[in-house]
């Protein structure tokens, strides 16, 4: 993966940059020692690393503004960082950049149950947002797998999703307002505890802009009352096609489950060996979860099992207890860990129209043979967001490159059938060079112009999202 060549003049100017940063931040909030900055050399896309020039950990919006003003004045690139859990390399540094970490910004600023929102600083972790309100019967809906660690700032940057977005939507559908600092240090309040924008929906374009438009320091998030209960049903089929048809029929029947998860045979085998969740050995496994009171759950599950039976399942297991529910989810939730036990893996997240599912799974199987790399598929079937996990051996020369080539082929296939490169992880550096597969030059140009308005000098996280040759002229300016 190519990254821009570091600006030698900026690297040489490190002492002056650090001195300027130390004027506006306490000493422990500026990290510039060569060994210490290594803590920020990568995010969860660990195949790529580059120590930054320095890292700063501001504690207030005012400090963020002061840091950005300095970097803006001195022409220093800035890479914002939440918790560093990006699978797409969204927080990967360049050697001439300052990492701006929001980890110290983790307070709850306001909780308002009557108006159903919480205002938090952006470094707060996703799960701890729910943690702050759950004893009062509320929760924050987006639930990415990394929710224990990932920060709201990163969720907003990537417009993160999760397993339950079929019903509750993704980050952008649950974000009411932000405090954002632009690259020149300007602090803006956009949106708030009300439900729509007065003029252009700037909040809508900031969410998912991968930290390229500004640094979000505070967020107003919608919180929802917790459902009375939830229960999954496990359905096994001996073909992917039939499982796909079952998903489609459930949706067409007018039921909106809170989650529909799909696992294929390689994934079932790996997770079963790892987590022993008691899954049946079959070609395709569905976990369908519904919510509500006990009666409501029964009503919905009765309909779902009736539909599932029409397709002759090899297994149909309705959870009868909290314990059984946990067990059903256990395998799914440990899928990534299970694959990690077997080998290194690359996790893709392209989205496809649900109707293209059987075709895409068949083609992925063919590619797996062609490349000689194993693939396991686990994904959110209700919304078509796939997570093919390609196994490779990082210690074997050429294997990473082979895996990346195969990943690219899978993502191209997702676009070809009417889907997209990324459903919830973001483009980062990982899918940057594939953007031309999904977008024509004029499509990208329009997006670049949005960044021109927010960050005219192109200093903020600029080596991401768009192919480097497309942004070359702008980054140089």
């Amino acid at each position, binding site marked *: 993966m190519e990254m821009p060549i570091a600006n030698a003049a900026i690297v040489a100017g490190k002492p002056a940059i650090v001195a300027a940063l130390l004027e506006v931040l306490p000493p422990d909030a500026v990290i510039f020692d060569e060994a210490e900055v290594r803590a920020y050399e990568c995010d969860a896309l660990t195949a790529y690393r580059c120590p930054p020039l320095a890292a700063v950990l501001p504690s207030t919006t005012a400090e963020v503004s002061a840091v950005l003003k300095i970097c803006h004045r001195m022409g220093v690139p800035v890479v914002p960082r939440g918790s560093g859990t990006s699978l797409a390399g969204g927080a990967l540094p360049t050697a001439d950049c300052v990492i701006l970490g929001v980890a110290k910004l983790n307070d709850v600023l306001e909780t308002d149950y009557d108006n159903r929102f919480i205002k938090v600083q952006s470094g707060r972790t996703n799960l701890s947002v729910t943690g702050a309100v759950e004893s009062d019967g509320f929760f924050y809906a987006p639930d990415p797998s990394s929710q224990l660690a990932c920060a709201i700032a990163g969720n907003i940057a990537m417009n993160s999703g999760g397993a339950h977005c079929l019903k509750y939507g993704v980050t952008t559908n649950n974000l009411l307002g932000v405090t954002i600092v632009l690259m020149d240090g300007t602090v803006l309040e956009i949106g*708030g505890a009300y*439900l729509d924008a007065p*003029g252009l929906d700037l909040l809508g374009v900031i969410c998912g802009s991968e930290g390229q438009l500004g640094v979000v320091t505070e967020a107003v998030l919608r919180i929802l009352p917790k459902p009375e209960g939830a229960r999954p049903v496990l359905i096994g089929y001996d073909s992917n096609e039939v499982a796909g048809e079952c998903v489609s029929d459930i949706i067409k029947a007018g039921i909106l489950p809170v989650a529909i998860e799909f696992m294929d045979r390689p994934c079932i085998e790996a997770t079963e060996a790892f987590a022993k969740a008691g899954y049946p050995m079959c070609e395709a496994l569905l976990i369908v979860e519904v919510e509500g009171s006990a009666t*409501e759950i029964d*009503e919905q599950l009765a309909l779902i099992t009736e539909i599932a039976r029409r397709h002759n399942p090899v297994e149909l297991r309705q959870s009868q207890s909290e314990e059984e529910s946990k067990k059903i989810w256990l395998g799914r939730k440990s899928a990534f860990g299970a694959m990690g036990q077997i080998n290194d893996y690359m996790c893709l997240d392209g989205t496809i129209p649900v109707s293209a599912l059987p075709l895409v799974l068949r083609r992925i199987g063919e590619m797996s043979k062609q490349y000689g790399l194993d693939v396991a598929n686990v994904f959110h079937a209700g919304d078509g967001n796939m997570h093919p996990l390609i196994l490779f051996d990082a210690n074997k020369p050429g294997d990473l490159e082979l895996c990346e080539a195969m990943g690219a082929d899978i993502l191209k296939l997702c676009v070809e059938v009417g889907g997209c490169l990324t459903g919830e992880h973001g483009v980062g550096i990982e899918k940057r060079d594939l953007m031309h597969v999904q977008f024509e030059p004029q499509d990208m140009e*329009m*997006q670049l112009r949005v960044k021109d308005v927010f960050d005219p000098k192109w200093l903020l996280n600029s080596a991401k999202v768009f192919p480097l040759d497309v942004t070359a002229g702008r980054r140089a300016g």
Partner: protein
Amino acid sequence: MRPTSEAELAEIIRTATGPLAIEGGDTRRIGPSGGGAPLDMTGLAGISLYEPGALTVVAGAGTPLAQVEAALAAEGQRLPFEVPDLRGLLGRNGVSTIGGVASANASGPRRIQAGACRDSLIGIRFVSGEGNVIKNGGRVMKNVTGYDLVKLLAGARGSLGVLSEVSFKVLPRPETEATLLCRGLTPAQAAAAMAKALGSPFEVTGAAYETQGTVTALRIEGMEGSVGYRRAELARLLGAGWDVLDPAASAAHWGAVRDVSAFAGVEGAVWRISVKPGDMPAVLAALGADVPAICDWGGGLIWALVPLAGDGKAAPLRGLLAQIGGHATLMRGHEHLADVPVFHPEPAALAALSEGLRRKFDPKGLFSQRSA
């Protein structure tokens, strides 16, 4: 001009030298009509893709809303955000188009539970001010590839580009609905009751208070058994004094709230005010007890009917909003009021960003008339 293809639309815009007035069915335009050569979008019509099993529909921007709704209804589905029909309110009689719905981000009572129009809009194609065809988003409901221009264009009222095609996520139409209704609550009591209901796990999909008749209403939708259960639980939570509307009466009630029917054909200017739901009583107090209001979205969306005199209460209203947050749009009556900006004034820094975006999307200034 009435293009019948996207290419034709692009050509018209590429060669345009003066302002254009983008027209769907002219059912949602607000503010003064600023002139410009009419650009009739109704030629870009038709549903190009509808997959009920994938909850997705794609249509030309000029497709009549009614056609989309009928196609969805035939499969037991619907647009989640309950599109308001404001023709009565605004005194129009055109045919609403799906592109106009997106351009106005038109969202009804169910917004509190199912999201706004912009939340269901998953993809667009549009023509920029230079005549380039641009696509963003797509036909899948989870997509974070590149910047989300879909949200930016939703509600932009055509000021950034001309929509040629829109893709929506749709939802199943529920089996049934019911409404709990209470008369005689003060604004503060109504706000409290709605907050209580919306803070419960019973999935309220409509919560509105009307000052005329002091009617507070709460809606529940879903499967038969579930609606019965939640209706009973909600009634228990709220205490005595709540009547039940049957499905037909419930649908009629929310149709009227959605379309602001009470103010149709009644003299007066109309404000659309967006605030934190709990601020509803304060807004009503600032407007005065004699101002009729329909407070949807649990109090967060207030439609107020003010006399056609002076500034139409703009000063006290926008003065209060400057303190508490929120915004107010003058939906009707601007021509009778002295110097009242139709759209809410934005803080300078935000206005500069918005203006910067408009210049980048529309360098020739063709779309300076916000329309829909």
